[in-house]
């Protein structure tokens, strides 16, 4: 039996299988994704007549440019923090025997199973001015130290990495698991110490996972909305919050749509780059 006959034979629907199997989701996606998206694009372009005026205004709006810079700053900071914390965790996981690794991965995935609202309030309870950390610091320093860690940039990043870390860890872990252990043994027999092995063998060979993790993280954090709204200060507005501002505060739907389309275009570009990384999302290295 050839593989192609197996593939179409499995459904038992013959040449129509693709249409029959994909139609329901296609209809749904059209209704809930493509149609509203088209509407948004239309709104951004049509303001009594077809024009690019909204985009031109966006490009010259100091608010938009400031928010865009904020967005990139926050996204890149969050991604870098997530990389620095995630890489060692991925290395630790890669070194575990498979059963233990599975158990540890459940813990890595845990944040996904918690509502982002609940997590945000929990973070405030831990890192806020009256939070556990500051209470402890205050107790130890006799009331001298109180670190503002919520409702500012630190708060946004703390909230974001909660969400970003699992993607970073899984992505790097994929590359590390694909790394042939005998390469490390070979480096050891040649006399290399652990530091050299990390810099010259492990890190370069896990680069596909690192690049994939970074791109996923940047893409995800660029569209952040709830976290900056709940944990950030007034200076930490991100593009998604700006869309919210236009739609609910100023009721400028054209500007809101154009901003949303711009955000989508930037994210789309990042996803396209992600697709070009060898090993990409699957995380396979070398």
């Amino acid at each position, binding site marked *: 039996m050839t593989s192609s006959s197996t593939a179409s034979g499995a459904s038992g629907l013959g040449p129509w299988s693709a249409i029959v199997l994909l139609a329901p989701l296609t209809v749904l996606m059209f209704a809930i994704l493509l149609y509203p998206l088209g509407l948004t694009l239309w709104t951004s372009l049509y303001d009594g007549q077809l024009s690019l005026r909204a985009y031109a205004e966006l490009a010259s709006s100091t608010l938009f440019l400031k928010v865009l810079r904020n967005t990139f700053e926050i996204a890149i900071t969050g991604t870098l923090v997530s990389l620095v914390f995630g890489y060692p965790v991925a290395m630790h996981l890669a070194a575990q025997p498979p059963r233990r690794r599975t158990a540890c991965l459940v813990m890595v995935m845990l944040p996904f199973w918690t509502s982002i609202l609940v997590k945000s309030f929990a973070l405030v309870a831990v890192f806020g001015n009256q939070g556990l950390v500051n209470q402890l610091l205050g107790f130890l320093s006799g009331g001298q130290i109180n670190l503002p860690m919520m409702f500012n940039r630190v708060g946004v990043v703390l909230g974001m990495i909660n969400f970003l870390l699992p993607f970073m860890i899984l992505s790097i872990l994929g590359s590390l698991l694909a790394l*042939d252990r*005998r*390469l490390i*043994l*070979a*480096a*050891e*027999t*040649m*006399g*290399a*110490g652990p530091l*050299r092995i990390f810099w*010259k*063998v492990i890190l*370069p*060979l896990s680069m596909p996972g690192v690049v994939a993790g970074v791109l996923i993280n940047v893409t995800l954090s660029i569209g952040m909305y709830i976290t900056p709204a709940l944990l950030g200060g007034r200076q930490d507005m991100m593009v998604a919050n700006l869309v919210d501002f236009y739609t609910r505060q100023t009721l400028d739907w054209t500007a809101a749509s154009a901003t949303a389309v711009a955000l989508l275009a930037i994210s789309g570009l990042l996803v396209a780059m992600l697709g070009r990384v060898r090993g990409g999302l699957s995380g396979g290295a*070398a």
Partner: protein
Amino acid sequence: MNAPSASAMVQLQGVTKRYGEFEALHSIDLSIAKGEFVTLLGPSGSGKSTLLNLIAGMIAPSSGRIIIDGRDATTLPTNRRGLGMVFQNYALMPHMTVFENIAFPLQVRGLPKDEIRRKVTGVLDLIQLGHVAGRKPRELSGGQQQRVSLARCIVYNPALILMDEPLGALDKKLREQMQLEIKRLHAELGITMLYVTHDQDEALTMSDRIVLMNGGRIEQQGQPDTLYFKPETVFSAEFIGSSNLIPGEIAAGEGGTVTLKTALGAFPVPAPDRPVRPGDRGVLLVRPENMMLTDRADPTSVAGRIEDSILLGGVVRHFVRCADGSMVIVQELNQPGRAGARRDETVRAGWTMDHARLLPPPPNTSLPAG
């Protein structure tokens, strides 16, 4: 405990390796002289890789001592044992060029740049791969990759090179070519080599000494000739070369000869070095190439019927079915004009007494009564 010997590159003293309940190596004693080419030969699972990895320091022994170049290295980490290793899958760094791969161990040793360049170029010439210096390993053939991994070893001139089935992934022709190349490098550089293979021909071709492993123990060791012509056990005889084995019971012994009573008759055999007594069980070994088809009914021959004859190029093999149902293989040289296979013909397969060996019965197997 023995003192470390000055002329030994590696000494294993009572080295045992256990995985839980399972004992992969049973108290191995082995000494490898400086400059020697020693092969660990044995079936899969006999503990060859375990022994090699113990010497490399990739696993730790459960008990026993490992002495490398006169120093107790039992607990020394791999990267401080100063040896080289060639892996079956080459283990070249995929992100480095051939040049960078070979330069790596020199960088580890902190050599200056121009000296690294000189040495790498030198070994690349030695293995005749100078033209691929800038390529990545995946752009090379399997044989070229293995030569690069060999070069990566010899470039830093380790006192000892370990190789674990390095040619296992290559096809037969390339394998034979590489065997000679490794032998040549060994002769030229004088580096001690410990080579693992399950291929008897490879072991016979390359080694100064073969260490035959069986179930975590050393079955027999010696020069290739010794192992081939003077196997001490049925396992050795069967693992190296092919053999005709006829089990029986020792009937009598006088002078340098003993008589073995078997289902096919009583045969005189040269008395073995170990003492034997009448009534002991034993196995008669005659190599197929020491058998010939004959019509003389002398005491060192068995009667049978040619069941098949196959041509193997330079030699012909006759499969002779004996009266008790057992099979004897006779191997003769092939010559132009040789009379064709005489299938179904009744013949005698004979040998000269000096070519027969009396082996002890294999352990844990009950041979059919003589």
